[in-house]
């Protein structure tokens, strides 16, 4: 395959940035999208050019490190996959592909396609945990959890923290990410004790980090590589309201 890549290049946070054209050839449909970028980068290095910086690590769709806005969609044209799981067979010979970073005020660009998502870590630090110290736990089977609840908590807990929800949202809202963690811990009996304080703290941190508000467009759910459901946002709103009324 022969392709034309239009890739966002930006030297650092202070630089203005622009799209640069890179023609690539001999691309196999069996390559992953990131392997295609590897090939381009090795060519750039051999020519003495600066390779394109992009985040990636596990390359099997679970670490949440890869990102990329591809042809206007977070993680590319396929649904329910991350960029690292995208293969070139999803494109046609001769295609032009636009590759951009996540764009959100709360995710400042570090270089090229790499952004700083540490705001997500800070939101978790604001309350995305159950306060139990090592060694303080009772027997694991002492509190039965109905299977439907456990499954629902698990579904929320599969969020990989990649930030596609924020990148896809016209308001750059982090509601899907935050609500997934709030939901997981609110559903489980172990998490109930702190549920009210948790949702208040996490939402307040989310606002402070500069994420936008939710206007229920649902773009986040469509683009989420793990299929995290919008019902989590509804649950968080309910939890928040309940807690705010009491507070």
């Amino acid at each position, binding site marked *: 395959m022969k392709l034309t890549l239009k890739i966002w290049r930006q030297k*650092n946070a202070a630089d203005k940035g622009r799209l640069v054209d890179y023609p690539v050839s001999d691309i*196999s449909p*069996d*390559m992953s999208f990131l*392997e295609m970028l*590897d090939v381009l*980068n*090795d060519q750039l*290095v*051999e020519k*003495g050019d*600066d*390779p394109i*910086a992009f985040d*990636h*690590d*596990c*390359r*099997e769709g*679970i*670490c*949440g*490190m890869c990102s990329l806005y591809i042809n206007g969609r977070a993680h590319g044209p396929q649904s*329910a996959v991350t960029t690292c*799981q995208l293969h070139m067979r999803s494109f046609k010979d001769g295609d032009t592909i636009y590759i951009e970073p996540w764009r959100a005020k709360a995710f400042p660009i*570090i*270089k090229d396609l790499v952004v700083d*998502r*540490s705001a997500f*870590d800070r939101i*978790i*630090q*604001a309350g*995305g*945990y159950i*306060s*139990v*110290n*090592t*060694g*303080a*736990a*009772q*027997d*694991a*089977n002492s509190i*039965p*959890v*109905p*299977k439907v609840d*456990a499954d629902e*908590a*698990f579904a929320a*807990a*599969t969020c990989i*923290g990649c930030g596609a929800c924020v990148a896809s949202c016209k308001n750059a809202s982090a509601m899907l990410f935050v609500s997934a963690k709030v939901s*997981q*811990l609110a559903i489980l009996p*172990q*998490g109930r004790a702190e549920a009210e304080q948790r949702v208040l703290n996490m939402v307040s941190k989310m606002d402070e980090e500069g994420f936008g508000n939710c206007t229920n467009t649902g773009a986040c759910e469509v683009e989420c590589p793990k299929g995290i459901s919008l019902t989590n946002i509804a649950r968080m709103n309910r939890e928040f309201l309940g807690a705010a009324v009491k507070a």
Partner: protein
Amino acid sequence: MSKLNSKIPAGPIDKKWTDYKDHVALVNPANKRNIDIIVVGSGLAGSSAAASLAEMGYSVKVFCFQDSPRRAHSIAAQGGINAAKNYKNDGDSTFRLFYDTIKGGDYRAREANVHRLAEVSTSIIDQCVAQGVPFAREYGGLLDNRSFGGTQVQRTFYAAGQTGQQLLLGAYSALSKEIAKGTVKMYNRHEMMDIVKVDGKARGIIAKNLVTGAIERHSAHAVLLCTGGYGNVFFLSTNAMGSNVSAAMKAYKKGAYFGNPCFTQIHPTCIPVSGDHQSKLTLMSESLRNDGRIWVPAKLEDAQAIQQGKKRANDIPEADRDYYLERRYPAFGNLVPRDVASRAAKERCDAGFGVNATGQAVYLDYADAIERYGKIEATKMNISNASPEKIKELGKAVVKEKYGNLFDMYMQISGENPYETPMKIYPAVHYTMGGLWVDYELMTTVPGLYALGEANFSEHGANRLGASALMQGLADGYFVIPYTIGSYLSDDIRTGKIPTDSPEFEAAEKEVRDRIEHLLNTKGTKPVDYYHKRLGKVMWDKCGMARNAEGLKEAIAEIQEIRKEFWANVRVPGAANEFNPELDKAGRVADFLELGELMCYDALNRNESCGGHFREESQTEEGEALRDDDNFAFVSAWEFAGDGKEPILNKEELVYENIKLVQRSYK
């Protein structure tokens, strides 16, 4: 006399850990605040250790090279975590988990450590459930278990195919709780560049801020390396792209011995290589072997027709299929341990029976499982005389429920539908049992320097059982190091803050800067990956699933040559004071080039077959691995002798007082 003191407590095996805990020195809470601990790596071992130590009152700094501690590669573990809970009432016990782990490891692990691991395994599950880890449950609300390769009891706890993710996010949440309190200071996008020793003790690290390129000094009273395994020495492995051996190699060069470096685990169920562009291999959980049947064509002409694309799996009639694991190992069949399953696949493919264009693949077939489950469902639903189509439909639904995410993943990568046609699999490098040698307290041979999780030479001996890596990482972090570190730090309460302006820090920082300059100034012609791929090929061909003396000697010479070329001709773009992933990769590959040679020395010295290490010179007439307990019942602990010099071998004899050594048989 051996220079190694493993510090195994006296007494009967089931009392050692309790006795140890009862008598180990404690550090009082007021003193803990004044003691600094550095944790490198934020995976299961690192996050759990950091959170636990911070809860106890120590002042902790954590470093990870990713953009968040939640990205560490523990997250990719799929299958499960073992614990001797015996919730299934199928006869499990601490002793059985201990026994299975020692046996599975082919009798090359330390009894006392493994017993301790089995003892604390149950507390791990308790801890994780309390943190909100959503393990799979039964309809009654209690925890579910499944069986896993190599064991006969159901002791594996799981969260669909994302157990590692859920456990890591649990540990990450505990870590986040401590970061919020200020007891842990987190350094994302930071890489450890070297260990700093003062008066023979580990007293800090040199770290690099990967965003700005700034070189930083950090001091501490103890340093914990929780930096994972080194499978990426093979270039292609199931590890994450950033997984590396650099921290362990720096420690090795500073005097920490490297234990059993040649013990690597080749996982039998991975998606085969598709071409030269490939950057990594993808594992498919071993749980697939619970229901899938592995086969290749029995006739060579059929295999060749498949390789040439003239025939497909479904064209081969049942009678012409060779279910070679069931044939060779009737007792365990498709559930033999990983090393056995991997070698058997290689044996068939080497004999020409492989099933894709490269001849390097075997089938993993779900047709029988779909039919079996379909019939069970039909019976449950009171459907009499169900049509084959209906049975298939019902069976597919069950398989989808159990393995859906794995099947989706396979489809995504290969472009084939595994519900209709058998999957193709081949072994790939997955886990490294070798690592830094540690004593019972998890301390390396450098005082104050500890290694936890996959980074140490581990409780897994020469072969790790499925669902045991998560158990070990969390055991080390949550339940071992919080006790054992007191034994060392209780002598450090009067030391006070360690200054970072000492000549030792000065010298270490200079060395780091010089190396970076060297890499940038070489300005050769080949990118880093070029050398990494060459190294990987040598390792896979000569230090992979089967090894022999001649090949290993060649490999050592070849690696030395590649290393020389690397330092003379590598091209690293950019500058030192900026975000420069190519530069970071260059440093890691430079360390892999040294590790590869060390692995070959170790493999050459160990002239026996055990676990994942198969020496062609040491096999039975039937081609099974032949262990040599008279000559090799020891841990190889390699000592750095200086650049360009052969490493020095130290031996820790392995004494078995509770388990009788037998030749493993899964027949």
